[in-house]
């Protein structure tokens, strides 16, 4: 995973809950494409058709609040979203995103739909329209999990090292 991410913004508001990110009726499968096809359906039914690989989701307060469903992070990841930027996250979504290798950044940014957002995970910064915003840089141990592509890959890498 690259530590510098650049993509087109999709703006969502405050308190975007996991039920709208991936409605409960689509949870009973292990087919990632199903999650991707219904990403954000509860708030924007056309999102999965409009979003392009590399795009960035921008939320307000409390993005990903609600249930523990990891499918919410998976839906965004497999829909092609490269990063989620929000003022702050629901804490389980925050953990899930890192665990499935979906980069995220806590930052209060000024941004509108379609703006190009540049996120530097190692620096903990976001740049939009030539303006820089300071975010909360992730602790190193979480950056390592993200860099390895998620917790499963991270654990496998550690197990390799031990051998």
């Amino acid at each position: 995973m690259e530590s510098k991410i650049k993509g087109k913004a999709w703006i969502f508001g405050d308190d975007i809950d996991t039920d709208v990110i991936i409605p409960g009726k689509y949870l009973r499968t292990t087919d990632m494409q199903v999650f991707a096809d219904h990403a954000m359906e509860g708030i924007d039914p056309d999102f999965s058709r409009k979003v392009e690989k590399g795009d960035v989701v921008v939320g307000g307060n409390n993005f990903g609040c609600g249930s523990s469903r990891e499918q919410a992070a998976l839906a965004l990841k497999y829909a092609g979203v490269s990063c989620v930027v929000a003022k702050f996250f629901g804490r389980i979504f925050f953990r899930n995103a890192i665990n499935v290798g979906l980069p995220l950044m806590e930052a209060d940014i000024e941004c509108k739909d379609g703006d190009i957002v540049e996120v530097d995970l190692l620096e903990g910064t976001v740049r939009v329209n030539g303006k820089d915003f300071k975010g909360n840089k992730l602790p190193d141990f979480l950056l390592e999990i993200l860099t390895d592509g998620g917790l499963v890959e991270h654990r496998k890498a550690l197990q390799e090292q031990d051998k």
Partner: protein
Amino acid sequence: MSTISEKIFSRASGKEAKANEFIMANVDYAMAHDGTSVLAVRSFKKMGLEKVWDPKRIVIPFDHLTPANTETTAALHHDIREWIAEQGIPNFFDVGEGICHQVLPENGFAMPGKLVVGADSHSCTYGAFGAFGTGVGATDMSEIFAAGKLWFKVPETIKVTARGKLGKHVLAKDVTLKTIGTVGAAGATYKAAEFYGDTITDLSISGRMTLCNMAIEMGGKAGIVPPDKKTFDFLEGRAVEEYEPVYADEDAEYCAEYDIDAANLEPQVARPHQVDNVCDVMEVAGTKVDQVFIGTCTNGRLEDLEIAADILKGEKVAVRTLVIPASRSIMIEAIRNGTAETLLEAGATLGTPGCGPCLGGHMGVIAEGEVCISTANRNFRGRMGTGGQIYLASPVTAAASALTGEISDPRTV
């Protein structure tokens, strides 16, 4: 000068743990249900691992889509059952045993001072017993399956104090909704809550579970009631191992404090589509409803069913009314003591113990444009069905609304 959370994480990590520190904590009990175990087991297998860290410390109740509603669900259930047998996990609760957050306490896994982690956001329910109960996602759970430990950021703590005697037909759910309305849907994000005051100590175990269950609805990582005699009595003969109660120090540091005036509290309702969109029942009284749902890990316990039956006794419901006990033992007791008969005679439908339609999976989802008054914990947009509207309330407010077909103040019916 430590909070309950700091003390529990100190023990679980083997070192002095203060708020905002990252620590590695040993998990006492780990829970995954039929919904989250699918991805947790998938991740566990992808990690290339064969055996879980300690089968006795893993608890798996099937509750989210039970009995299986489709062939796909049945196949997923089948695979998880096979894995449970392979791993020799003794604490498996299959279809009909009840909702995870009821099953764990009933079977003594939620104990004071313990770190109980569930792959379900409402795992904060275990705080009703003085445990640090918290929710994680599936891959975090696979890491616990693998190693028995997980990283945490030790949370800061908010202190909520509720004082006063509750009025007639004002219940634990009303205190809970009032608290969430006061703190806000994100007011406790990344934080734990501790609950104090005579209102809280007066609550039954069942009521405390309602309160702690919804800590996540203000963003909370945990919601904890300090254990007392009621807790110890409940755990007598149930607790699966010895436990040591943990209390906050007098000079513990809280990042925020809230006071709830419970003596003057009216029945509360959370309007669509956010749980903190809370008002007195009078403000929404008269809103037509299509369905009433009494159940879930929030309000599917015996006292909830009994209070609904008291209202419905000898009457007939005006709209379809689903009652789903939170566990098999609750259902048995409701049958034994006549509660189930009263509800059925009043025209209510009784469902298999489990989550029911709460998360929109099956067994009572609603149509576009329909309104449901529910005793559950979430009223998010589309949760019980696309285009549906969910109002959250106590079981007595829900039962009163069942009689009239509109949201009703239980003190007026």
